[in-house]
């Protein structure tokens, strides 16, 4: 079985005031297509570093990271930007929408960087917003939307460029429980449609939605359980 993501012996060290911090310390992880994974771990466990690593925002100090036959650990900044754009859909805890742009514009932005023509961009952005049930909120700005709606815009933005994985960092952390359930339902639907989802969370309730639960501790995979 071939993997979408294959992390081998990943190490990531930081130099904090002359002291070396081993955020990731020999981590191995393989992820296949259409998996729904949760990554858990207490703060300081290396969970955030791992998420940045998988999201191609960071590169390992040592080890190999293969993403659909591309060697991420050898990439320069431009290549990393490109792979983020093509293969990864981010969903953040604080939504991270452009506050002064409409929902439609927010969803359109990744396609600008993917160099897609204006007409196609708008068509695809609309389609993506319809998929998350926001067809009547397209021209609203983030401050005119509820938390749950904002997160749905963010999911639409993550999906618009048809990424290989969706990487969600505490996606329900800033939402009330009802909106949180809605968002998790959307993730379930996306998974049913064949998407690969990686959910980073510290809430066990949220993590239980995933089909595979990974616990990180001291920069290593502590446990890897399939539901």
């Amino acid at each position: 079985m071939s993997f979408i993501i294959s992390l081998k012996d990943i190490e990531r060290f930081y130099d904090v005031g002359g002291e070396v911090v081993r955020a990731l310390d020999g981590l191995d992880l393989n992820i296949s297509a259409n998996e729904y994974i949760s990554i858990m771990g207490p703060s300081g466990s290396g969970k955030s570093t791992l998420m940045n690593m998988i999201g191609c925002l960071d590169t390992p100090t040592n080890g190999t990271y293969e993403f659909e036959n591309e060697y991420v650990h050898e990439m320069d900044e431009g290549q990393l930007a490109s792979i983020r754009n093509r293969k990864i859909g981010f969903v953040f805890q604080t939504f991270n929408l452009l506050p002064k742009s409409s929902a439609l514009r927010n969803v359109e932005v990744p396609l600008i960087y993917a160099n897609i023509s204006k007409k196609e961009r708008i068509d695809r952005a609309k389609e993506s917003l319809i998929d998350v049930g926001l067809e009547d909120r397209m021209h609203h700005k983030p401050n005119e939307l509820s938390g749950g709606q904002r997160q749905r815009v963010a999911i639409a933005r993550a999906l618009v460029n048809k990424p290989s994985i969706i990487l969600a960092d505490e996606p329900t952390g800033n939402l009330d429980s009802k909106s949180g359930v809605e968002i998790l339902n959307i993730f379930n639907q996306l998974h049913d449609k064949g998407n690969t989802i990686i959910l980073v969370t510290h809430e066990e309730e949220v993590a239980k939605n995933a089909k595979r639960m990974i616990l990180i501790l001291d920069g290593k995979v502590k446990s890897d359980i399939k539901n």
Partner: protein
Amino acid sequence: MNKNKKKSHLKNTIKESFRMSIEAIKDNKLRSILTLIGIAIGVFSVVGVMTAIKTLENHVNSQLDILGSNKFYVMKEPALSFQRSKEYWKRKNITYQDYLDLEKLAKTPHSMSAEMATYEDDISYKDKELTKEIKIYGATFWSVRHHQFLIDYGRSITDDDIRFNRKVVILGPDIVDILFPYEYPIGKKIKIEGIEHLVIGVTGKKGEMFGENQDYMALIPASTFTQYYWDEDESNVEIVLESKSQEELRKTMDEIIGHFRVIRKLKPSEKNNFEIVNNKELANQIDGFTGGIKLFAGAVSVIALLVAGIGIMNIMLVSVSDRIKEIGIRKAIGANRIDILIQFLMEAFFLCQFGGIIGIVLGILVGNLIGFVLNVSPVIPVDWAFYGLFICSIIGIGFGIYPAWHAANLDPINSLRYDK
């Protein structure tokens, strides 16, 4: 294929950067307006000064053209001097007698005339009188030609009028309108300071020159003029000469210098105690003068633009640190360094262009307003408008590059985590 794709990518990026920069400018109105004002003032000072100078130059040159390039003058003092030096001031006045003496000696000039004038306000015909004082010229035979007056009807002043101190007068059309609204003026007698003068001619409409109405004046024979209206001790005559051709100008001028030295009884070792000036030299002097202003204005403008540029840089740095989070988001969803760099560079560029256009429009308006006050025909200095825009682009890019580079090199992880 790959090259084409890259090209279209760049085009797309620039197009999007344009849109994003407009959005950013709109979103930060106050900040943008302040920056615009800075740039606008800088460009305004360049374009405004250049427009003003250009209108002046056009004006002076057109007037000098009318005067004719074969003309030159014998004067007491230089036409343009920046210090009123004692040397000039202490010189003897040029008198009407000096003019008559020169007329006897000089053979080579095409023509010469004495230039003298005074202002009088007591002018009347029957019950009508002028309320505003008029300029009265003491005219010799060639004065009418040298002043570019045309006799519309009647006759000009003849040598006999001068020889016999005849009390005759040529009137400007505006005076005829006031004194003779229903009568034919020729042959009528008007009173100037109580002295009767026979109207012999009327000049054609001329309009204004150097800000003076050329239709509101009168010419009387120079001899009559000096007899009744001229204070020989306090007044100074200018002698106007015209050479036969451009080629003979220099020779004629040299001859006149020689004759006038004789009239002034100067020894060979003594310097001229009079000035001889021709229109070309006058034009050159004016050029030198405006050149100095240009240089000074240029220096001031460079400083203004430098300040404006620093303003742009400052604003862009603020803009970058205000939008660290935005930069992080953009990077996370796939923007690379070049995308961010171009976005911020374009923002600075367009900010400068908007400011520049405002400055150019204001500059041309104010420059022409100065022209309007001086009664000069308007100009649009296309070249300086172009330079203005060019300068703005340079400033936008030059001072925008550091903030944009700073934005492009922000670390995406830290930027995403950044909270104001």
